[in-house]
């Protein structure tokens, strides 16, 4: 980890005196997480929000914006693949690792269940 980040390889210093780089996160609906969309250069957080709205929320829906000073972001180094390394096959953690369940249910004359089907059932009718 590092802080005072040089996110995306750019320098931490702003290219205009009295300004700072703010990373911008847009939330498209209240149920979605905020998503990183890019950055703006601004003299204050308030101003960064105004610029972010003009740059990133001109169309589409947005319910909320976050701006975070780039130097306040801690990030993993872009060239450290080891940080995310998977030492061995991890399909045992995935739904895809159990694709034989469906066939096995069939032998019992029953159907495998899916999460989507439960969601529709419980949230719907």
């Amino acid at each position, binding site marked *: 980890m590092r802080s005072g980040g040089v996110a995306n390889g750019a320098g931490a210093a702003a290219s205009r005196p009295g300004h700072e780089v703010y990373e911008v996160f847009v939330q498209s609906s*209240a*149920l979605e997480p905020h998503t990183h969309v890019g950055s703006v250069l601004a003299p204050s957080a308030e101003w960064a929000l105004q610029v972010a709205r003009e740059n990133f929320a001109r169309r589409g829906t947005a319910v909320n914006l976050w701006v975070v000073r780039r130097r306040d972001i801690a990030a993993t180094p872009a060239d450290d693949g080891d940080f995310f390394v998977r030492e061995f096959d*991890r399909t*045992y*953690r995935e739904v895809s690792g159990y694709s034989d369940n469906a066939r*096995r249910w069939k032998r*019992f004359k029953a159907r495998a269940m899916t999460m989507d089907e439960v*969601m529709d059932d419980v949230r719907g009718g």
Partner: protein
Amino acid sequence: MTQTLYTRFMARIERGEKIEAADWMPDDYRQLLLRLIHMHAVSEIMGAYPEKEWVPRAPTLRRKLSLMAKVQDEIGHGQLLLRVAEDLAEPLGRTRDDLMRDVMTGRVKFHNVFHLEAPTWADAGIIGWLVDGAAIITQTALLDCSYGPYARVLRRICAEESFHMQHGESIILTLAEGTPAQREMLQEALERWWEALLFFFGPPEVTASARKMMEYRIRSRTNEELRQKFLSRYVPRIRAVGLRIPDSRLRFDEETGRWTYTEPDWERLGRMVRENDGPKSRERIGLRRRAHEEQAWVRDALVRAGHAAMV
């Protein structure tokens, strides 16, 4: 003043808007949510205990890996939920440490199913299949909760639960396809868990606080509606794999479109949750306390290291 805030809040709820941590909310909205999410968080953590008991004894390496992955997920769910609870507890002057200590002092309860014994590998299978199955139903029912941070975290949790669903099915399919001894073990495990599974959804009466939660759109389904969903989804599958459900009165009434069943012993199982007097309650709370206390030095060291890095 409070009156206009309240009117505005209710108008937001009725428009289907999501409430965020820093928004104004009535005290009872905060209290109801905090109680719900605190219990949910603690149940995820205490829920890992019966399964973790089977990690060293899992029958194959692959089962051991998937069980460990599941235990890790459940603790992870506890972490995500605690964070949501902490933000709600903060204005009340309560911290993460308080929320965790509440488990040890009995101030917060956890789900009945996690007070029980899991004596065989088939119990680990029934937990993965049916306890998670029941929990998936109660959690999906909260996906539309009016509190944004909870609704968003539940989305992540439900995505991971889809693996738990497959993991549980896989274990019980193997046992059901197995030898007569394996099938018998599965049957016995089902008999141990059935009553507790019905209890899990809570009493059929709609209590005053349940009604309030519906008014606030924290939840939209009654306990009984969810229990009925569970029965409709799982009874046919339980029977399909050749298991007998230990309830001679269980049947689907075509006329009312509802399941009738023998009511669980609300009094006895309720006491188990209220007083932590289930067969495994004390032992698991003891393990939780030990983990909390023995790791205190790590938390302290991290804080000291953080301060050192700042100077």
